[in-house]
């Protein structure tokens, strides 16, 4: 399979102190890593693409490590995660699906025994396209306080033959969460759901 050709890497950390309500003692942090890579399958239909997932694993691990470092270096601080991809117009949506395994498993590997599925979204877009990356709790998808999303994009990507690959990690619930449901403190954390 082709080599992963990285053009740009973005790492963003957002520290949220309040949203016009009571200021919590510890602010919420949300970090995102965006990699702009060449899409080796752009421009034509390629049947056999699955091998590229293996090639993307080192990039996934590097991005997961950068996110943990950007959040202070302690993987135990991470409570939410998400992932996504924007495929340039020369590619197809299926190319974005290549990110599920290397993106998801790299975060699980670095976060210990996280049980929940990593929520994701993907789309075909162009230079400057924004994407809303969904976020859920790392051990139990039904934890309502941790449902969140982060809007991301790169001003000059993806070009026609590129993909933007995204990973997101957060340190806690929405800043003023108060709509009930399953609480993080009440999860069993065995089935990845509750």
């Amino acid at each position: 399979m082709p080599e992963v050709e990285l053009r740009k890497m973005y790492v963003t950390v957002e520290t949220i102190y309040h949203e016009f309500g009571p200021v919590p003692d510890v602010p919420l942090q949300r970090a995102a890593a965006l990699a702009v890579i060449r899409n080796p399958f752009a421009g034509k239909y390629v049947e056999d693409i699955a091998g590229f997932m293996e090639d993307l694993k080192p990039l996934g691990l590097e991005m997961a490590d950068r996110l943990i470092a950007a959040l202070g270096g302690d993987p135990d601080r991470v409570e939410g995660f998400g992932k996504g991809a924007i495929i340039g117009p020369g590619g197809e949506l299926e190319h974005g699906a290549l990110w599920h395994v290397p993106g998801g498993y790299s975060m699980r590997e670095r976060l210990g025994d996280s049980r929940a599925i990593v929520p994701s979204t993907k789309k075909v877009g162009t230079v400057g396209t924004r994407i809303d990356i969904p976020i859920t709790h790392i051990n139990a998808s039904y934890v309502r306080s941790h449902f969140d999303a982060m809007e991301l994009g790169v001003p000059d990507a993806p070009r026609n033959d590129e993909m933007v690959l995204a990973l997101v990690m957060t340190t806690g619930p929405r800043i003023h969460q108060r709509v009930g449901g399953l609480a993080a403190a009440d999860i069993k954390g065995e089935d990845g759901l509750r």
Partner: protein
Amino acid sequence: MSAIIRKIVTTVEETHREIGRTISPPTRKAVAVAVIENPFAGNYVEDLSPLMEIGAELGGLLGEACVAALGIEPSQAESYGKAAMVGENGELEHAAAILHPKLGAPLRKAVEKGAALVPSSKKMGGPGQALDVPLGHKDAAYVRSHFDGIEVRIADAPRANEIMVAVSVTDSGRPLPRVGGLSADEAIGEDGLR
């Protein structure tokens, strides 16, 4: 008056390849943005000195955040810039009060020296709108390889009563500079121009 900060977003952009060429080491730009309450939203206030004090506070805070995000010593910073976007209930002059009188000195301390004018931009705008921060060499404004810019946008800011204040610091110029002019090596860096 000190700033009431709702969130801080810090981003590092690395460029590893450009137009088929490898950039080694990658060029790196950091930008740190504070979203603050606009104390003068909604009415005309003659004395803007409290915003000037907020500018001083943010110049240091955001300049240091950029240097920390790049993981460099202050002396390794090469270029800088600043910009502000005022939410709809404010006034363009509010951006000027934050950016111009007092923001520069603490920013220069964060990047060591900084003989050159800090290039700046300002606008009125709303949530999700792009803000382009101009960049120039920190000790010699005529260094042509370091004229650049970085775009920032935050999905939920600035709200009507808020101001987005951005500071950018880099450890490099453009990826493939080749339009001549004064080079960073030749710059004396005493008068801020050459």
